């Protein structure tokens, strides 16, 4: 820890005051209020709160739709993350040569990061449009199957997975490329001389050496898919068809704002909060132990 240099009885408090004020009013107060609200239910006219203890939680845990939503969220996030990273890593290792113009490629790869998930969704919505979109049109030459996301849950899920991966893909690739450039070519050459084939070289050298990049991208993509795809769902599928794309954050919002079931929504927030706390803890342990920066 650095030695403190300046002395002043009140200045440090004034300097942290804005951040602490906002943290208390907009983070701690709402978080505790979520804990409190999760134990209540609104009366039929919505004019007062009735204490029901763990009622919201037992209702949640007894609701198959909630577990479907848990499964959808985890599955969606994992597919977005793993598919996005696997393809990026594959392309990056195929493209691994000292190349000129890396900065230009980086610009051409990074721009989709700036597109809002909701806007990315709208674009892909049209690409997938059952009547006018280019993708169903092309697929109609191959198969009679109707790729209509209005009706088929898995098509809707595919649509949002692709939109999410598209937005993330460029910078996943850019980071892998940067990571690969940092691996000394002599290491790979030495392995090659020792008779290791390309696949062996990849798993024995490239993949382990890229583990910090992978870890960094994994957390970033998981967080993105879990929390920041709300706009994508809201603008494109609205959780449907049925509840095929109803991820946890979307459900918590819908129950709270559309259904006005404040306690029920707050209980979902509490569960989400526990999840985030657990994930952060894992991330810090893992980041400290396994990954060498």
């Amino acid at each position: 820890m650095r030695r403190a240099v300046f002395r002043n009885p009140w200045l440090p408090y004034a300097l942290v005051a804005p951040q602490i004020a906002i943290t208390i009013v907009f983070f701690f107060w709402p978080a505790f209020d979520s804990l409190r609200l999760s134990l209540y239910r609104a009366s039929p006219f919505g004019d007062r709160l009735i204490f029901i203890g763990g009622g919201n939680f037992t209702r949640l845990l007894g609701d198959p739709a909630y577990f479907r939503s848990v499964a959808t969220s985890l599955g969606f996030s994992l597919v977005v993350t793993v598919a996005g990273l696997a393809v990026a890593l594959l392309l990056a290792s195929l493209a691994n040569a000292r190349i000129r113009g890396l900065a230009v490629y980086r610009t051409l790869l990074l721009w989709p990061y700036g597109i809002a998930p909701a806007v990315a969704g709208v674009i892909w919505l049209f690409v997938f449009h059952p009547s006018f979109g280019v993708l169903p049109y092309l697929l109609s030459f191959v198969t009679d199957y109707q790729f209509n996301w209005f009706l088929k849950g898995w098509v809707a899920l595919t649509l949002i997975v692709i939109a999410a991966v598209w937005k993330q893909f460029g910078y996943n690739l850019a980071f892998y490329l940067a990571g690969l450039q940092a691996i000394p070519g002599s290491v790979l050459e030495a392995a090659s001389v020792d008779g290791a084939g390309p696949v062996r070289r990849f798993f024995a050298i490239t993949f382990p050496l890229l583990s910090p990049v992978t870890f960094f991208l994994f957390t970033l993509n998981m967080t993105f898919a879990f929390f920041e795809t709300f706009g994508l769902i809201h603008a494109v599928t609205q959780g449907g068809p049925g509840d095929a794309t109803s991820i946890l954050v979307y459900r918590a919002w819908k129950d709270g704002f559309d259904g006005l079931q404040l306690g029920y929504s707050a209980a979902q927030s509490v569960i989400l909060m526990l999840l985030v706390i657990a994930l952060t803890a894992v991330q810090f342990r893992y980041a400290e132990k396994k990954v060498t920066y």
Partner: protein
Amino acid sequence: MDRSSAITHVILVAAVVVLAFPLYYAFVISTQSLDEVTSLPPKLAPSTHLVQNYADAWSRVGMGRLLLNSAIVALAVALGKIVISLLSAFAIVYFDFRGKRLVFWMIFVTLMLPVPVRIVSTYQVVSVLGWVDTYWGLTVPLMASATGTFLFRQYYRTIPDSLAEAAQLDGAGPLRFLWSILLPLSTANIAALFVILFVYGWNDYLWPLMVTNSQEMRTAVIGIDSLIPRTSQLPEWNVAMAAAMMVLLPPVAVIVAMQRWFVKGLIETEK
């Protein structure tokens, strides 16, 4: 070596083209007439209705106001967060004060409480303050975050103590030191944080959806929702895509223009 670098370029160019295709397609649609949009096979060349579609999109949702709101929100969130976290990091690194550990942990815990985990309650707090449907409500609750504070804290700790001691010997107080020495040294970090936060503020969806209820206070990503043709409506995808292009242009432009700092920001804020 020559062959492998040719392969490399082929792969990278292919990736760039595949990534760009949806955007190109959206742009092409935004230049077509309704007839062209709904005809099969899909037409993949730009047409002549660009001005009309963009003007339609602009007037139907009040795009001027929406973009202004987004700009206000994105700038206020980015600059507010930068100022607030710069000050708190300065206090944490350069002063000893009672409760410093508590302050540090309070800031750290906010990492675990993003908006999606406190949906209803945060809205209620804003509504108690009378901030629903105001710029205050849209911006202030998003201004505290741990990432900025940690970024500046990390950076300040790499600056040698002797610099602050020398400033002190020359009679400079802490604020003078912050303003004349620390701030100019931090410009790269500030720029990095600015790109990330501007994009975040512009594209944020859940929070503005909750705290606004009039079209005048909507931000652009939400305000264009009514232009997306639903099943029973006229399929005016050309107008919808024109709106999408206008909404996505500012954050993409900021990333491209500030690319160097953007990459730095991505790495530093996620550490």
